[in-house]
């Protein structure tokens, strides 16, 4: 993306596109990734309320997955999950697994 000239930018450094950081992907920071056992997930939303990234994907009050574009792999969800159905796996292992599929 070409950076804008001073004539093109709004003055005062204001950012008009709210929430634009979604385009900034922090998933690459991850060393470990959370894997949810969807069969056993009760959608209690404890992971959702504790996720620093707002990265727990939800549809109609049901957990549907994790936003891997932004998940930094902190592991809070895995530790706090009441039924203990989220586990952290090494990112490299997870990636190898994906490639093997």
């Amino acid at each position: 993306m070409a950076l804008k000239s001073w004539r093109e930018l709004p003055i005062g450094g204001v950012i008009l596109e709210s929430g634009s950081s979604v385009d900034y992907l922090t998933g690459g920071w991850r060393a470990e990734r959370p894997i949810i056992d969807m069969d056993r997930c009760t959608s209690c939303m404890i992971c959702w309320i504790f996720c620093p990234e707002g990265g727990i994907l939800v549809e109609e009050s049901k957990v549907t997955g994790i936003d891997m574009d932004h998940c930094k792999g902190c592991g809070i969800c895995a530790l706090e999950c009441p039924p203990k159905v989220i586990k952290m796996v090494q990112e490299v292992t997870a990636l190898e697994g994906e490639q093997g599929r």
Partner: protein
Amino acid sequence: MTMTRSKGSVTDRVQGEPIALDGAKAVAQAMRQMNPDVVAAYPITPQTEIVQTFSEYVANGEVDTEFVAVESEHAAMSACIGAAAAGGRVQTATTSAGMAFMWEVLYVASSLRLPIIMAVANRALSAPLNIHCDHSDAMGARDAGWLQVYAEDVQEAYDNAFQALRIAEHPDVMLPVMHCQDGFIISHGVERLELLPDGAVKEFIGTYTPRYSLLDTEHPATFGPVDLQDHYFEHKRQQVDGMEKALAVVEEIGQEYGDLTGRYYGHLSPYRLEDAEIAIVVMGSTAGTTKIAVDKMRERGIKAGLLKLRTFRPFPADAVAEALAGVSAVAVLDRAIAFGSQGNPIFLDVCTSLYASGARPDVVNYVYGLGGRDTTASQITTVYADLLNIAETGQRGPLVRYLGLRE
């Protein structure tokens, strides 16, 4: 007082109300007439009277303003920034230590492009503590991105207040403006002036529509983000653009104000300068004193002139160079010291302007009036005598001199 270059018809003009007021009260009156949405201010001599008088207007319901009597000047400017980002008209007032305390956030105000108006009653900076006039406070904020406009007398202080608002809010500018008057000399000097009718002020200032506002919760904007190597420079360049465009806007608004009141304003007011061989450049109340000295010199057949500077930021470089083009020796009077520099703030800008234009009169710099030291017409005639000597002998002598100092 000011230049007369009438364009509008005299019958369009409003009838002013003659009254005797000091500069602080006059500016408070102007603030009442502008009826800002928010005023946040903190008292400090000699600005206190502005805040006190305005508080009375608030207490008597004469303004709609939300007056925030903050606990410091830093808080005053901080509240002004929050209020201005929330999209309404905002004003404050300060001087000296108060302005120094604001320093960090003066930059925030200008960089967020918030058209905040600040009345300043210029005063010396500590230490030692001194409550009297010089320009060290505003000169310290010289590069903070604010426009600076100076008054010679009470009428100008009053008139500048309205023009400051129009200039600041002009879409080409969108920068904060400080309108300055010499502490005590103007702020506490009672003079006759003409007040505008309230209705005329209302019409002159119109209404203000912000480009973006914090209160526009439907369109949430982020103000004051972190701005790193990729964009910071571009945002600074935009501020330069606003400053540069302000040069024309100051003239335009000064003309419009003149058509309304008969009192026309620009960046400069030359006095007996057309055929002058020697000239003084000065800003603020000392311009009035200098006129007396000019007249005395003229009586003696000496072609002395004065260039009064009204706008210090943006500096009207081309106009200054043009006005001084025909003069052989110039003295620039500074009421502040730029320590360690080869000459002081106004001098530096005048020299740069002349150099860039190719004009090469001899230019010397006088520091005067620090800490409220009285500067008399007879002292100023000695400056003209020095200039005459320089013009005649071609010997410039010391670059920086001190007027009214015990050596």
